């Protein structure tokens, strides 16, 4: 039995390398990117939740308004009296969940790196063989062992080790990746789902964050300015315009404004100066913070959608490699459907066998 297998291996080794071992380095890097993208999203979520818990505590102590004027609360209205406790619980639950997700994804990354290293090692046979030959020469020389056919043996050894290491690695890849495909698919499905919920969380945090920013600047004030937003500029301009017109008309008529007229216009200007100096900047700061929050929302959701797409492609690539290795990796590369059983390959096999034989005859 042993002899029969040796025959098979000796012949097949020369041809088996026809199926290339895939370069999985970019795939392994993609798995890190996927993990990092999700982890970054979770970290910023924890930061936002932490900030919201702080805002809720402030809201409770300062008595922030939950609604504006006589507005009725809705399902989305934040109750500042209970928000701190609720959000603390959300934060604690989220921290635990985030650690679970990160743990699973880190294990996935380490697996991907190990698979990549296995694929890389498919090309280490020749190098290993040269190491062996070198060390054997050294040992033989040291011990004074006569080994007349050593040079020929070295050539065979290099040839076999180069091909055989590839065969072994490709078979191991096929076995490992096929066995893991179910888990890879499950992880991709789980991450797509997790990221979808995370998108809703980002949305939820944006809603809460907007209400917290509104509360910070004053719910009623912001509500007032929002009503006035389109008129504020015109309102601020009007008294200046009135004063300028009155002043111009007075100049044209060579008749100065009366003290009463001057006082009325200046009072109007002063009133609007107050709004201009204190009201508008507050509203603009509020809008700046809301805009920044919306920008974060958009960037976060975009990143999460990218994670969803990337992990789907990642799992697909894993399946393609696993299927290819299973169908045509290692010794299976000789199957006619793999396209390697060609006249040229047989010729190469014959030539290599001849060269091996010749190398032994020379020694």
């Amino acid at each position, binding site marked *: 039995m042993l002899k029969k297998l040796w025959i*098979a291996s000796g012949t097949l080794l020369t041809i088996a390398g026809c199926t290339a071992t895939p370069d999985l380095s970019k795939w392994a890097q993609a798995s890190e990117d996927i993990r990092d993208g999700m982890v970054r999203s979770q970290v910023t979520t924890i930061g936002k939740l932490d900030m919201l818990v702080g805002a809720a505590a402030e809201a409770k102590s300062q008595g922030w308004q939950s609604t504006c004027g006589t507005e*009725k609360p809705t399902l989305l209205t934040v109750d500042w009296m209970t928000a701190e406790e609720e959000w603390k619980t959300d934060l604690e639950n989220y921290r635990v969940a985030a650690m679970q997700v990160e*743990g699973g994804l880190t294990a996935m990354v380490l*697996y991907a790196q*190990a698979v990549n290293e296995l694929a890389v090692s498919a090309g280490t046979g020749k190098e290993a063989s040269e190491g062996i030959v070198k060390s054997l020469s050294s040992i033989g020389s040291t011990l004074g062992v006569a080994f007349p056919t050593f040079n020929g043996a070295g050539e065979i050894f290099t040839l076999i*080790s180069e091909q055989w290491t590839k065969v072994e690695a490709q078979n191991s890849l096929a076995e490992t990746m096929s066995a893991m495909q179910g888990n890879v698919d499950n992880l991709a499905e789980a991450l797509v789902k997790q990221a979808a919920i995370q998108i809703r969380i980002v949305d939820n945090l944006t809603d809460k964050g*907007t209400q917290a920013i509104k509360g910070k600047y004053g719910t009623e004030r912001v509500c007032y300015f929002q009503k006035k937003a389109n008129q504020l500029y015109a309102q601020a301009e009007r008294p200046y315009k009135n004063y300028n017109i009155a002043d111009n008309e007075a100049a044209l008529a060579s008749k100065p404004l009366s003290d009463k007229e001057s006082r009325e216009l200046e009072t109007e200007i002063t009133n609007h100066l107050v709004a201009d100096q204190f009201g508008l900047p507050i509203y603009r700061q509020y809008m700046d913070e809301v805009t920044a929050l919306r920008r974060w929302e958009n960037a976060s959701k975009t990143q999460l959608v990218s994670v969803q797409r990337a992990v789907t492609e990642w799992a697909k690539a894993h399946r393609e490699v696993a299927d290819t290795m299973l169908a045509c990796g290692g010794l299976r590369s000789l199957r006619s459907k793999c396209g390697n059983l060609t006249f040229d390959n047989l010729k190469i096999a014959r030539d290599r066998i001849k060269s091996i034989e010749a190398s032994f005859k020379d020694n």
Partner: protein
Amino acid sequence: MPDNNELRALRHLNDYAHALTTDDFNDDDIAENAFLDVIDAVNPPKKDELKELYAKLKVGSQNGSKADIFLAYAEAAKSFGALKKEFELGKIKANNAQSSLLFPSLAKELKSVAESLAALKQATTEILNDLDNAKKALDSGDIKKLIDEASASKDSLDKVIAAFKTITTK
């Protein structure tokens, strides 16, 4: 008669309702933000009505109450615990496969085992004999039979690997 702000809020709310049926979150957010930017300028009672409608649309689109998403996230995250164990096993399997690759392993072992010189010579002599037989098979047209026999089963591969490994134990 509805004022301008009311009409704008209604239009944005309508856009939001429509956008919720699409896959693009950007559409939702644009319509939603436009609605939120104008709703406080709408006079009651229309403001309350529109806000209530908006809240129902939003919560309805998320299949639950506002608090459910954190519970949903925690529930979904549990599957990553089980997957973590599976991927750790996958990593061990890949590492073991790599470390047991025959020739790189041989390289490590033979460096320190002088006795393997004899084993190597014997192995290469056997290979030479077998290759000679293989050449005859190739020349005589039996190669396909040989290939089919060898490539057909995983068992054969394992046995070949086992045979190679005997080199190091001789």
